[in-house]
């Protein structure tokens, strides 16, 4: 067993797990954060996407021990008790999620994109979502939602030049 301490959504959490445990299973089974989903378990579908030290990763392809001491942000850490994250709000307004299974992963990929590039082109968004498969909704409404949030953010000071 290895003892892993991860800073999850701003809070340090510790668990003792077998060394082969993935970050995804650590989050779901030890910390009861079931937002990240197990879809394919081999890094194709992106349903398990979370952010580690600010970068989006497939949590099914990372050992829990490799995340030891790092910052992990999951879908559960996006909203506060007071308000939804703008991306969550836009996805809800535009009906961007149907069955919703891919949603947590898509939203984390979108968040990682906007953190790095507040003014993405449509191609940038498509590229950012290439690792997230959706089988019901399609990507159009998701892209619209992400563009809407980016534009709203862009109205604030210091948008990044293209």
């Amino acid at each position, binding site marked *: 067993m290895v003892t892993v301490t991860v800073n999850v959504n701003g809070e340090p959490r510790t668990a003792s797990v077998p060394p082969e445990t993935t970050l995804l299973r650590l989050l779901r089974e030890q910390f009861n954060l079931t937002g990240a989903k197990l879809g394919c378990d081999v890094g194709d579908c992106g349903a398990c996407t979370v952010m580690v030290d600010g970068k989006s990763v497939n949590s099914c392809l990372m050992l829990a021990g490799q995340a030891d001491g790092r910052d992990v942000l999951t879908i559960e850490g996006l909203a506060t008790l007071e308000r*939804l994250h703008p991306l969550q709000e836009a996805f809800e307004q535009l009906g961007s999620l149907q069955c919703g299974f891919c949603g947590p992963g898509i939203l984390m990929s979108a968040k990682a994109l906007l953190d790095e590039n507040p003014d993405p082109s449509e191609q940038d968004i498509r590229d950012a979502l290439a690792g997230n498969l959706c089988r019901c909704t399609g990507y159009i409404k998701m892209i619209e939602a992400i563009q809407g949030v980016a534009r709203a953010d862009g109205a604030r000071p210091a948008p990044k030049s293209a």
Partner: protein
Amino acid sequence: MDKKSAVIEKQARLQEVEALLKAPAAAPLAPLPREVLVPEARQQTPAVRQRATRPDGRLHGLGQTKYIDDYYLPGMLYAKIKRAGIASARILRIDTSEALKMPGVMAVITGKDVPCNSFGPSLKDQPVLADERVFHAGDGVAAVAAVTEQIAAEALEKITVEYEPIRPVLDPLESLQLETPGLHAPNPNIYGHKVIRKGDVEKGFAQSYRIFEGSYRTQMVEHVPLEPHASVATWDANGRVTIYSTLGRITLGRADISRTIGVPMSRVRVIATVVGGNFGGKNEITTEPVLALLAKKTGRPVKCTFTRPEEFLASTTRHPLVMDYKTGVTKEGKILARQIRLVLDGGAYCSWSETTLGKACILSAGPYQIDNLYAEAFVVYTNKTMTGAMRGFGAPQVCFAYESQMDDMAKALGIDPLQIRLTNALREGSLSPTSQKLHSVVVRETLLQAAQRFGWNEDGGGNGAQS
């Protein structure tokens, strides 16, 4: 008014009231044709162009929607199914003793432990766990419940199965031959058949300027719902089983679960939760009876979530079709007669094949007015992953065939592919292949509008918009 007449009047009144209160045995016959309100074609309703949000959209976005795999019941065990890995064989022996010895393994069952080892949404031809015969590589042959998924998976490797291989039938056309031994003997391999006749095809062919023949095939397709199949079974103190499942048709599934585990339907409760994509692939039970039996044996809740490989191997897929089309046309491309033979590769079990067969057959002529039609469809068993419901129930496959042939004919006759479709398209009041009178038909209008929008004629016409 004297007393007597008052009594008579009262009685008459009572009879009147009684007659009013008494419901008629049958509703009075309404005159035919009955007037039916049919909305105008393309009529705009207030919902059109409105943004629709979903009631579950917020929880989806918050990651708070609970799918089956997010459930944990106290004391829950994890089940794994051993897959045959061989397309066709007789099972000689299954040895589960080594698996049972493993620490953490709580129960192992095989087909012999299933009270009634057959189910299916239409034909009851599918075993819960294969006991005597393996019909396709994805068949389950044993199931393990253990304290972790990892132990369950390792226990599967400890189970040994001795097979006597039987030559598999993989080609639907081979299966169609009557001399091919029946997979599910004594039943023949052809387990569904449909014929649609309209007019006289021989007469139509005789009048044709040219006759085109073509054979078209489509491949097997998996639904790939992002959420794999999953279920949890748990028994209560009163001997009732509750099953949480990704199942789309719970009442049908309940009947099959009740039948296979030998428990009255009143003691089976099926709870369908939010499903992470179905597309027709979650319309029937998979491991639910196995989990119910393992849960009963261990006295603990049992969960099973398919791996992605299992999703491809052991859930239903879209039927591959072999489609033979013979079409007679005039010089101008007007279809005079069409003869079609469809062979559906049904895989190992029936599943929703009969629905698919019917719909494929009815739609096989395409959205075209054809007076002389003969369409015949067969569905046959093969030793492959079973095929069942998937978006469209056979419609996409036949569309590929008839539209491919339309293009072949247009090219050979030197007609614009759009024109040959306009010439033949169904019109208001046309009769469908099954002679249903069609209303609100806008095939031509749709084609013309689409052609105009994507600039069909802009590069000189006929060659499409691709160059």
